[in-house]
């Protein structure tokens, strides 16, 4: 029996999400958005709720 040739799964590394994203706007101002960190999520989450997505 011919052996099934295993193809090595390519490990595509995703880029890391930044903690803060800052963008310079067309009018020269800067706008920043901050990632809500796992510790902040833990503090704000009610364990009685189940994730829907």
């Amino acid at each position: 029996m011919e052996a099934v040739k295993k193809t090595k799964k390519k490990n595509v590394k995703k880029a890391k999400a930044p903690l803060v994203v800052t963008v310079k706007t067309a009018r020269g101002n800067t706008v920043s958005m901050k990632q809500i960190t796992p510790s902040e999520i833990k503090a704000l989450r009610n364990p009685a709720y189940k994730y829907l997505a």
Partner: protein
Amino acid sequence: MFDAGYKFSLIQQNTPQHKDWIREYIFQFRTSARKRYIVIVEEYPSQVFVPKFYPSSEKNNPNRFAVLTDEYKASRIIRTIIDIMLFIYQKNSEASFAWLGIATIMKNKKEGKSFTQRYRIYKNVMLNFFSEDNWLHYDDYVTSTYLLINKSQQEPEQFLKKVIKMFTDIYPELESE
């Protein structure tokens, strides 16, 4: 709280001309026989969806997204909006969402645009129903804005910069002074 929403229906899907969003989906639901709500979900480029809603009785009010109805049904109404977001996500597996917790405007009350009541409630809801395994949560309390980014994005930083730039180009009022 937030256990069940109202039954909703998609009543219209438009491709508007001369607007910054590429498509809009109009849903409706009823909280009672007489009270109807309209939900508009705007689809922007890169599969970014923005849900907005108002009671249909306020359709001619320029502040229709900012009123309080005193119906005391907020949790079921908000859960319905989540169900609509999930409906959109089912049909667009790479969908991301953005929203603004608009400042309340009433006859005797005008809220500031930072850290609004809506922003505080919606943020809590997002964190409780959208898992960090599948979503990146970003916010800016100064402008009461929130981005729920789908983790399917391979380059989240580039994607975020593109989305923030797009929204600040369209809505200059999102720039904090």
